[in-house]
């Protein structure tokens, strides 16, 4: 992961009020984390959609066939399933991408085309038929899950298949749910091509999960809680440290991030490669804070681990020196826990604020 990839991610997701994605092995802990996260981050104007969104997320999850037995976070592979939920304007999108054998593509395509071209009455009829006639289902009639998704959203299910080799393809599917109360005339829907692009980027950078949203104090708490719950079954040092990194980094965004319309927009990503975690974040920061932050990161990057330990212990007992160019405990702690430098980049966007991206390896 590079600061550049954070920048690109942020730009692709620029209009997302919330976007959460996960790639890896799936289990119920991930599902409950995702549904809680989305519930907690849905704007007031969409409150009435909460239950429907949860329902559709669960349907979509169940659509991703491979459920892992363990609830340990595993490193994503080329075969990992992908799940994403996002909100842009009045619409919510629930996306899944999973491997499918090429020989089964035609059956799935037929099912989806059937539900996508049926009207309400036909769907109800189809639903009844499938419920009462198992045989039809097996022969390739529409699956109940697909019918339910279409009935609940009153829309179509965009889908696509991307061949990866002679045996397998990636099956992309998106559920669109629009809030009729807030929908503006001419508001267009995000297409599935963007999902394919995001999926590609996520795979390239070995991303395990990312979250784009509001990083105020109130919003960060539940996010951390959920990640911790998801890690709590593990005592592995790396995972505890990953959590610690997240706490420090996210609380830093919520403290120092630049506020636009009561929101502190931010993005964080966790990647995992060869057993090593990497965390990346991106957020806005006031131009007036850039120089000091740069100095602080440079300071900790240039100190040896011994010196960082000494500085940390000194600050523990004596408190931080009130010089804004000197790093705080959180930053010193990050620096001493990582063997590599903290990578960062500032991009000035206007006369008020800049985009600040950071990556750190555990």
């Amino acid at each position, binding site marked *: 992961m590079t600061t550049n990839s954070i920048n690109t991610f942020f730009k692709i997701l620029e209009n997302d009020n919330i976007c959460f994605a996960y790639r890896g092995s799936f289990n119920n802990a991930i599902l409950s984390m995702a549904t809680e996260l989305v519930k907690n981050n849905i704007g007031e104007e969409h409150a009435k959609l909460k239950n429907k969104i949860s329902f559709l997320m669960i349907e979509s999850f169940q659509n991703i066939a491979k459920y892992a037995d363990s609830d340990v976070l595993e490193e994503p592979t080329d075969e990992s399933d992908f799940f994403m939920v996002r909100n842009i304007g009045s619409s919510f999108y629930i996306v899944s991408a999973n491997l499918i054998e090429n020989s089964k593509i035609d059956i799935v395509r037929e099912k989806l085309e059937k539900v996508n071209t049926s009207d309400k009455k036909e769907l109800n009829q189809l639903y009844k038929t499938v419920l009462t006639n198992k045989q039809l289902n097996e022969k390739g009639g529409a699956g109940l899950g697909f019918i339910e998704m279409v009935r609940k959203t009153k829309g179509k299910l965009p889908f696509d298949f991307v061949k990866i080799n002679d045996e397998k393809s990636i099956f992309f599917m998106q559920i669109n749910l629009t809030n009729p109360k807030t929908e503006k005339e001419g508001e267009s829907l995000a297409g599935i091509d963007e999902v394919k692009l995001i999926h590609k980027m996520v795979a390239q950078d070995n991303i395990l999960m990312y979250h784009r949203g509001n990083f105020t104090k109130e919003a*960060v708490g539940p996010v951390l*809680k959920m990640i911790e719950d998801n890690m709590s079954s593990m*005592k592995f040092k790396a995972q505890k*440290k990953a959590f610690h990194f997240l706490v*420090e980094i996210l609380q830093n965004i919520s403290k120092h991030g630049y506020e636009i319309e009561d929101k502190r927009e931010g993005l964080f990503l966790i990647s995992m490669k060869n057993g090593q975690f990497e965390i990346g974040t991106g957020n806005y920061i006031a131009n007036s804070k850039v120089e000091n932050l740069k100095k602080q990161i440079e300071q900790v990057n240039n100190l040896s681990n011994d010196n960082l330990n000494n500085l940390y212990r000194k600050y523990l007992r004596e408190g931080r020196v009130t010089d804004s160019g000197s790093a705080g405990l959180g930053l010193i702690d990050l620096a001493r826990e990582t063997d590599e430098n903290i990578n960062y980049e500032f991009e000035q966007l206007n006369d008020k604020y800049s985009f600040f991206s950071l990556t750190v390896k555990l």
Partner: protein
Amino acid sequence: MLKKLKLTATDDLPLVILDAKNNMFRITGRILPEDGNVFFEPILEWIRTYIKEPNDLTEFHFNLDYYNSSTARMITKLIVELEKIQEVNKDVKVIWEYEEDDEVMLERGEELKSISYLPFELRGKS
């Protein structure tokens, strides 16, 4: 006698029991408030009063799963206050309880021990 201070645990705050009468001093759980000052101020206030007339032996138990950097500073502040009990010739001891396989909490205990000037026991629990 100083009134007992009890704070119940929440998602990001620990259970705190400071009870001079029953000689019980415990902080248990996880601590990750964005601003450690707010949470710790009443605790430090209680300790500052207590150390004026401490019990013969004060055993302060930490049993923490996790805490953030802003809390690390506050825990140290608390330990620095406890050190003062020795000035009135009473005994004080910190007991740092951690789950045996939790290397992170052990390392943190070791670090706090290294900067403390009082008896500091690391107690692994299985």
